[in-house]
């Protein structure tokens, strides 16, 4: 009897949740922040929602001198502190029987022998059936070592129908060459469909919301082109500084950290044509088409801007400047703010600039896509009555309060004909007892189910680097980024950059 003929399953039965099949998750980098704050709680929340198989196993791999109980305690503390759903003893019991810890180092073959034994023991005792996902929550420099060891110790291929998958976090390299090198390392060992690249900034829920908004409605698509759209602004702003990320951030900067993956992915989703279906392959195809039609500005000095935050006040707190942060050299020319103009050369978007900006220590934490429309070709009103009237805009708010805002003109009540902009808001429902999943929950569940649709494949990563590399190269040869005061909306050069095109940044 094949799986497809399980008589208890019915495609009509959409109430029934998809539970991952028997499997285990091997976590590299269990001592890291991400593992404790996001991954372990996400695993627990999945279990609490009944989406993990009864025999699920979680293996931790790290240098620490721990045994299984110590590891369980670490997970326990992480879950208690950070999980989204309430702590339940019975869920914990279900999970904790599958905890294993392997002490080891990435360059030590014996550690990986132990890992292999552990995995085999789990197949036997927990019924994980040889299905394992390896989550590399470790710096990219260690990827080659770990992936190589996995291969050498026969951990990368399951027997028969069993699967092995690998999850890697952004950054996917720091330029085209390193991205290719990284890809070569991973793809040598794992086939493309077993590699899951995770960009936690761009949760699946958000992507699906955008797809639904664009392609399930009749009223937006007709105006979604250069006939009506004046320009598009994509913003991702953080109110905090780099904090403890100095080691990673310095030398990488805002553009590589956020624009390459997050903002370009958002742009691709906003600009792409409708896919033949929402299957992984078709979605990627459309996104790749957009990314390969992108043209960067000829004059990078006029159409890009970068900045570095200075000391000042942010949200009522006195904060230090980037150069004063721990472990940052006084001469660092890493940008903490980046803004670029991109043009998409196809029939739909010719002449419509896409302005992408990101930064840390800005006014507030917000991610949004604003589609700004052209002014009405003729306004049958007097000059004075339309003075306060701006452009129509459709804003997709991505965080913190996911939703859609429509901005349009309306008459101010009264006898005078006076027009002013008003906003119409829609918010996605959201926070509920146990249903609205956290991004990592969906990511991990997708990995365990083998459901990759929205993860970028390597081609997209390469295309993004091709767009960004020349810009970052040019910046690196042109001195210091311009300072901007913490808590503001970026350096003056960013405003000048839009002013040159006769436009202004929206205050998000």
């Amino acid at each position, binding site marked *: 009897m*094949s799986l497809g003929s399980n008589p208890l399953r019915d495609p009509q039965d*959409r109430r029934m949740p998809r539970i991952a099949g028997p499997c285990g998750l091997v976590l590299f980098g269990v001592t890291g922040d991400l593992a404790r704050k996001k991954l372990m709680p996400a695993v627990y929340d999945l279990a609490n929602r009944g989406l993990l198989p*009864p025999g699920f196993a979680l293996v931790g791999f790290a240098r620490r001198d721990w045994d299984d109980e110590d590891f369980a305690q670490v997970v326990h503390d992480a879950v208690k502190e950070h999980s989204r759903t309430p702590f339940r003893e019975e869920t914990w019991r279900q999970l904790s029987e599958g905890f294993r810890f392997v002490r080891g180092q990435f360059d030590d073959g014996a550690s990986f022998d132990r890992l292999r034994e552990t995995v085999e023991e789990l197949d036997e005792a927990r*019924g994980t059936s040889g299905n394992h996902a390896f989550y590399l929550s470790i710096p990219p420099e260690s990827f080659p070592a770990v992936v190589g060891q996995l291969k050498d110790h026969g951990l990368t291929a399951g027997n028969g129908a069993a699967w092995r998958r690998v999850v890697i976090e952004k950054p996917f390299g720091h330029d085209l060459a390193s991205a290719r090198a990284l890809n070569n390392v991973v793809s040598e060992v794992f086939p493309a469909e077993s590699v899951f690249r995770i960009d936690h900034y761009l949760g699946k829920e958000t992507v699906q919301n955008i797809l639904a908004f664009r392609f399930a409605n009749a009223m937006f698509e007709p105006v979604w082109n250069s006939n009506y759209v004046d320009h598009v602004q994509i913003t991702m702003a953080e109110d905090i500084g780099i904090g403890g990320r100095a080691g990673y951030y310095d030398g990488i900067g805002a553009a590589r950290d956020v624009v390459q993956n997050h903002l370009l992915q958002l742009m691709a989703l906003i600009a792409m044509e409708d896919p033949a279906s929402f299957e992984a392959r078709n979605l990627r195809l459309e996104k790749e088409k957009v990314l390969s039609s992108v043209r960067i500005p000829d004059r990078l000095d006029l159409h890009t801007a970068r900045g570095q935050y200075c000391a000042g006040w942010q949200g009522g707190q006195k904060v230090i400047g980037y150069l004063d942060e721990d472990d940052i050299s006084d001469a660092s020319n890493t940008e903490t703010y980046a803004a670029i103009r991109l043009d998409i050369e196809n029939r739909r978007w010719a002449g419509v600039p896409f302005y992408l900006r990101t930064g840390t220590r800005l006014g507030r934490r917000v991610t949004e896509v604003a589609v700004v429309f052209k002014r009405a070709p003729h306004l049958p009103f007097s000059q004075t009555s339309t003075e306060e009237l701006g452009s129509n805009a459709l804003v997709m708010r991505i965080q913190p309060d996911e939703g859609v805002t429509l901005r349009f003109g309306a008459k101010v009540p009264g006898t005078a004909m006076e027009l002013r902009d008003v906003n119409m*808001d829609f*918010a996605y429902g959201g926070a509920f007892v146990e249903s609205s999943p956290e991004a990592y929950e969906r990511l991990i569940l997708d990995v365990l189910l083998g459901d990759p649709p929205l993860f970028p494949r390597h081609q997209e990563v390469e295309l993004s680097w091709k767009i960004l590399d020349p810009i970052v190269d040019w910046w690196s040869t042109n001195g210091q980024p311009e300072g901007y005061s913490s808590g503001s909306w970026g350096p003056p050069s960013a405003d000048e950059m839009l002013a040159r095109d006769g436009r202004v940044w929206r205050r998000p």
Partner: protein
Amino acid sequence: MLIDLTDTNASKVSAALLQARLRAGSPTMGMVLTFVVVTDEANHEQAMADARTVSTEHPSRILGVIRGARRGRPRLDAEVSVGQGASGETVLLRLSGELVDHAVSVVTPLLLPDSPVVVWWPTDAPQDPASDPLGQLALRRITDAAAATRSRTEILRRRSRHYRPGDTDLAWTRLTPWRALLAAGLDQHPVRITGATVEATHGNASADLMAAWLRCRLRVDVELRTSDGPGITKVALHSRHGDIALHRPDGRLADFTIPGEADRPVALQRREVAELLAEELRRLDNDDVYQDAVQVLAMSGRGSKRKSAQVPPSESTAPTSVRVAKQTSTRRSSKAPTGKDSTRKATSS
């Protein structure tokens, strides 16, 4: 923003809603449905609290309808609240006198335009929800056999004879995690199931539905046994290789059994009403799988299922499935209570 209205009518309530919404700064944009809660003075607080919890996931206008005494002159009192920690609008309507029988006249003007209506009876519900005047307004009618205060044992079976697309019962919603785990068990160990056992407290409506669902999907005899609960304590699918089973003695943690493997604990806690409602509201189209199960339940006469527990073992292997298959085909060809059966596929597995 709270507004109390005494001795009022629907258009004054409408006006109060508008006023409250404007004063609260329009926190109610994006309401997706009208949620009518038909309750009584004793139960309305819990029911309205549950409805408000659900409205954080499904922003809605909640209309609580309290049917008071039929004595005295017709009278409507209302409490309108907007904001107050819920993401939609809430109106509590107290009906008394002759008006008790004409709740529709109050509810109709207060429905959100052009969006679905869901009616929920938190405790006692009409036997034929789709013919109830309030039920007729709704796309989805939610009952809860387990919360009925009268004749609980047979209530679902009797109601199932009146089943119409759009009817649903929380007794079914409660089964979702069980069903998912059983299906996962069968995924892991794909064997031919020869029979099944469901153990629950006496007259447990969810257990009846579970048995009906298994019978319908697996086409085997399902034995129903009485246990001390809480709720369902065990579901076992029998096969030549052993049982695929879920055993939950304490209402919280279950043992998951698969032939040839060690038992594993799996969390299977009983869920809060608000969670069940949220699952219910996630889809408002007809639940075909529930329809199948409920029709099997409707066909099984009073107590006939208990008798099947006494079928001698010799009969419960091959011949049984033949007999059950026959029973199923009768169900298909007989005039279905919904009249929609003919459009469904002839076999389901």
